Each structure stands twice: as structure tokens, then as C-alpha cells.
């Protein structure tokens, strides 16, 4: 028994001792990246990581950060908070200067206090939960993906513009889904729009069979059905397909950022006609003519044979903004960089001009789109 323990301890020791490298002037700057690389969200997490790698090589080609090259250390949080925390601890002991993370909100919320206590800058790329910016886990939080309240406005405006009266909600029953629905309703109230909520169906995140819920919605005969489901691998494509098959009346509108190209590829033809909204489209203005964006899209295609979607762009933009701030301030320290980003503005990013709110939230610009021929077609700017 003791021999076993000693053996385990010895191997543990050997690996830990070999771990931390000495930080020297011309050593690369280590950037930690934590996303799910396996499981349902694995493919998307891998793409985001790849996009960050593409952005790192763009930055490295133009001189790196303070003259040093960026080295990406990528980890898999397995969509599990406990694993995420372990991985964050690993990266901290590897001496990273910043950690870019966050696909699932609980994973981000779990990692925040750990990274914060270690005095390392933590940039959340995608996780949407509101408490991420509350300051409880990390007083210097930064988050790029749009918040629920920003998203609510654009869907509310669409509903009002369509003069739809009977609204149904198909909502994932968790903090994200309920928050998204609340913000849409709050925005509708704010613009004093009169509507009737004819159906409201909640379902668990892992749901893939929506026939029971859709039957209820269909019976209510809504003008617009808002589908809020962040389960891109399974739930959202299933919902889109089953809505089509069940001949759901009215227009199906998806919550902001829930319909990525990957969803459309699984949903297939059923996705045609679905309306959604998002904040980044690689080949639509103003992104299409943005030199930085073109460079990024080209680099991602060259390195990974993949056209970036919003999530990938958010990951890459997180790295870009951090590198800009570091180069400008000539430091890698957490506090000055976080303060520069929070409430600050950056020009020449893949999103063009990026502006952050004082709470660390990126201000984003939403665009409505319709899916036609299984492609995202952005609606004219008048919307």
C-alpha cells in the first residue's frame, strides 16, 4: 500500500517538477485557452481554439506581443466545471499571462474565482450568463459575446416590426434560456408593444424530442414562435426539423447566436425560412471589407480549411484585443490591461471598432438574418 502511494507520489512529483519553465525575456508569451474539446460542444470548442491559433499566428507575423511570440496552451474543459477548474490550475502553474475561456456558463463561473485569485487576466469569449460580469467571481471580468439583454432588443424589435400579436416561446429551462426570454419580453414592454403570449414551453437543455411541446405551441396558432435553445449539437437542429415537420404555423425565430452554420448543416433543408440574429458574419458588410477580418478569414481557411463563424471570431477577437492592450501598455500585468479593456475602445480588430462597457461587456451590433438554401442571408440594414 505504501509502495503504491510512494510510486504515485513520485510520478506526480516528476511531472510537476518538469512543468514550470523559467520565464525569460525572449521566451514566448504563454496564452491559455480553455474550451470544450470533447463531448457535444467539442467540435465547436475545437474550432474556437483553432481560430485563436490562427489569430496568434497573425499577431506573431506582425511582431508578436512586446516583441515576443505568442504560444497557445490549449486545454479541454470537457464542459465540466470541475475539469475546467483543474485545467485552469494547470495553466496557471504553467505561467500563462492570460486565459481565454468560456463556452458553458457554469464552467466559466467555476473558473473565474480560481483564475482571479491567481492574479491572471481572464477573458470570457462566449459564455453568456449575466453573473459572469457581476464582479463576484472576478471584479475585472471581460466578456465578448453579447449579453442576453442586448440580444433581447433585436428580437423584440423584429416582433414589433412584423406587428405579430400572438407570440409563443420555446425556451430552454435554465439560466440562459429563461434570461433570454425575460429580456425579450422586457424589451417588448419597454417599447410598449401589445402582444399576447399564447404559449410558453420549457424543456431541459438535453431535450432532443420536441413533439410534445410543439403540439402545444401548434395548437395555440402563434404568429411568431421564438426558439431559445443553446444546445447546438442536438437540441436546436432537432427543434428546427421537428417544427418544420409538424407544420408549425407562423414564423420561427431563433434567439440571437443560437443558429451557427453547424446547426444549419445538421438541420438541413428544414432550416430554410428560419429567422435569426447574430453579431458576426464573415462575408457581409461591414465585415466583408474589413482588412483585418479578411486576413483572419484567409488565415483560418489556410490553416484549418474552415470559414470562421461568430464563435471563432469572438475567440480570435479576445486574443487580438488583449494583444493590442498589452502592446500599447507595454505590460502583461492583469490589472492595467483589464482596465484598458473595460470601458475602452479598440480600432482595427476583426470586428472593426470594438467598444467595451465599463463592466467589461463588448458592445455588439446585431443583424437579423434569414436562412435561405441552407445559407445565412443577412436582411437589409433597414431592419
Amino acid at each position, binding site marked *: 500500500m505504501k509502495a503504491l502511494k510512494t510510486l504515485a507520489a513520485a510520478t506526480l512529483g516528476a511531472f510537476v517538477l518538469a512543468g514550470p519553465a523559467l520565464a525569460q525575456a525572449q521566451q514566448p508569451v504563454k496564452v491559455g485557452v480553455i474550451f470544450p474539446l470533447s463531448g457535444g460542444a467539442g467540435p465547436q470548442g475545437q474550432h474556437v481554439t483553432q481560430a485563436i491559433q490562427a489569430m496568434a499566428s497573425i499577431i506573431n507575423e506582425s511582431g508578436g506581443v512586446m516583441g515576443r511570440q505568442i504560444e497557445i496552451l490549449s486545454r479541454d474543459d470537457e464542459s465540466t466545471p470541475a475539469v475546467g477548474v483543474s485545467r485552469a490550475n494547470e495553466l496557471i502553474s504553467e505561467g500563462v499571462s492570460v486565459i481565454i475561456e468560456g463556452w458553458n456558463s457554469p464552467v466559466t463561473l467555476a473558473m473565474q474565482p480560481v483564475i482571479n485569485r491567481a492574479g491572471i487576466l481572464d477573458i470570457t469569449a462566449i459564455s453568456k450568463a449575466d453573473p459572469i460580469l457581476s464582479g463576484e467571481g472576478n471584479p475585472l471580468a471581460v466578456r465578448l459575446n453579447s449579453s442576453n439583454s442586448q440580444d433581447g432588443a433585436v428580437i423584440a424589435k423584429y416582433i414589433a416590426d412584423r406587428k405579430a400579436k400572438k407570440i409563443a416561446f420555446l425556451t430552454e429551462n435554465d439560466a440562459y434560456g429563461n434570461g433570454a426570454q425575460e429580456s425579450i419580453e422586457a424589451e417588448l414592454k419597454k417599447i410598449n408593444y401589445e402582444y399576447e403570449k399564447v404559449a410558453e414551453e420549457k424543456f431541459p437543455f438535453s431535450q432532443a424530442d420536441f413533439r*410534445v411541446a410543439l403540439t402545444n405551441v401548434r395548437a395555440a396558432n402563434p404568429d411568431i414562435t421564438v426558439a431559445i435553445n443553446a444546445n447546438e449539437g442536438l437540441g436546436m437542429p432537432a427543434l428546427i426539423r421537428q417544427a418544420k415537420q409538424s407544420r408549425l404555423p407562423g414564423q420561427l425565430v431563433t434567439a440571437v447566436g443560437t443558429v451557427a452554420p453547424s446547426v444549419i448543416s445538421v438541420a438541413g433543408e428544414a432550416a430554410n425560412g428560419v429567422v435569426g440574429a447574430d453579431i458576426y458574419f464573415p462575408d457581409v458588410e461591414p465585415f466583408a471589407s474589413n482588412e483585418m477580418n479578411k486576413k483572419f478569414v484567409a488565415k483560418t481557411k489556410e490553416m484549418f480549411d474552415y470559414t470562421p463563424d461568430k464563435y471563432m471570431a469572438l475567440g480570435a477577437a479576445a486574443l487580438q484585443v488583449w494583444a493590442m492592450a498589452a502592446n500599447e501598455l507595454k505590460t502583461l500585468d492583469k490589472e492595467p490591461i483589464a482596465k484598458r479593456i473595460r470601458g475602452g475602445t479598440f480600432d482595427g480588430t476583426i470586428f472593426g471598432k470594438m467598444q467595451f462597457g465599463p463592466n467589461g461587456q463588448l458592445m455588439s451590433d446585431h443583424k437579423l438574418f434569414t436562412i435561405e438554401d441552407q445559407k445565412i442571408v443577412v436582411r437589409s440594414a433597414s431592419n
Partner: protein
Amino acid sequence: MNLTQQLVNGIVLGHAYALIAIGWTVLLGVARLVNFGHGQMYMLGAFVTWYGVSRLGLPYIVSIPFAMLAGVAVGFIMQRVMLRLTLKQDLVSIMIVTLGFGYVLHGAAALTFGSTGQILETPLSTQDIYWGDLWFTYQDIAIVIVAILFFAALKYTIDRTRIGRLARMVAEDPQLAALAGINVKRVYFGVFAFEGAAVALAAALVAPRTPILTSMGFDEVIVTFVVVVLGGIGSVTGSYLAGLALGLFTAFFGAFVSPAYATAAAFAVLIAVLVVRPGGLAVSPGGR
């Protein structure tokens, strides 16, 4: 609210649940074995069917036996590895080993098939039927028909045929069965092979209803638990009725309360039943 449609939903769901659970019911009834890898075997069945249809270009009807064969193979391997534990009836170890099998199957399937969502499209699943206000697919009809035929055939086999009798003898008393000249090991192998084939058949039929992922399987295990326990452990008829009841419960609970809590509610019912009549579950082994 369209109650007829919910009734249709419930009936289809119920037959799907019964079909998913049947392999486990027999496994439990005859060999007194539990299989926590059941959900992952379902996943594997769905992916092998998908691979046959969309990668090898096989007709759906050929892909189903193909998937069932894969299920039989997995069942054989599991039983081969666990034979010592099975003969010892070391249930503690068996439960944990099957959990381990589930892990291995998940990992291996994700490495083989990738972890993106896929659609298992069959000639039946794409054909919708609209009947007045009602909607279902030919796939749904196939699920109901196959489930009924399968249960009827199984019931007949167990009650009326020599193989069924042998299985029942082993179920009641494996040692006495050996004295009746029965090769108990072979019956155990057969039961595991049946479990593999049955769950693969269920997957091939039910999985086309929703997109498939290599990380799925958890919900299927949960459904199976409820069906098997509520149906009276090891009872074929009971499983069918429990599956149907669970399907209707899910549909109507979803219609009147919320789909969000349907699974938890089903489990709450299950716990309540067990508290009220803990002894009433030990139905005759052998699966009557």
C-alpha cells in the same frame, strides 16, 4: 390543446420506450444482470445504422441487421469479460463494470464517429403523414408495429418455446438448471446477445426521430430504469405496459405541466411506487 395529437405522441413515445427497455428487461429477468452501458449500446446501434445508411450507402433495411450484429458482438464481449462475475452473481462488480463499458463505448464511438450531431435519415422518417390536425411519420408507425410484433414474439418465445423454457429455468435457479442438462453459460451468452441485438434494433428504429450524438445514451438509460422497475423487474408484459404508460405520462405531463420536469416527475412516481410497495416489484423471474 390538441389532446389527440398528444395521445399519438404518447403512444409513439411509449412504444419507443418499451422497445428501448426490452433488452434490459430480459437481461434482468433471466440473468439477473444490470447493464449501465445500455444507453451507450443504444448510441452505438444508432451510429452503426447511420454509418451503414449514410457512409456505406446500404439500404436502411440492411443497416438494421448490421447494427444488430454489432450489438450482438458488444453483448458477447461484455458477457465474455464478465462471465466470472455473472456466475458468481457479484452484482456490485457487474454494475460498475457495465458503467465502465459505457465509458469505453462512448470514448471509442466519439473517436470513430466524431462528436458532431448527425441525422439518421431513413426512407420512413422523411415521410410525414398529416391526418386532419394530426401529424406523424411512417417511422412512428414502424416503431409501434415493430414494438408490438417484437413483444408478442418475445412473449410467445418465452412462454411457449423450448428456448424460452430454458431461459426461465436458468432465471429461476441456474444451479438446478445445470442439473436439468442446461448449459447455463450458453444461456447467459444468449441473453447478452439478445440484449445487444434488441437495443440496436430499438436504436435503428427510434434514433431517426431526433439528431444523434455520440454523447447521448443517458436519457435512454433513465427511461429504461423506469420502465424496467415499474413494469415489475424482468416482466415482458409489464415492460410493455410500463413503457406505454411512461410514454403517455411524458406526453400528457408535458402537455399539462411542462416538458422540463417530465423525467423528474417520472422518477418521483417511481420512487413513490417503490416506497409504497417495495416488495411488489419482485415479479416472477424469467420474464412472464
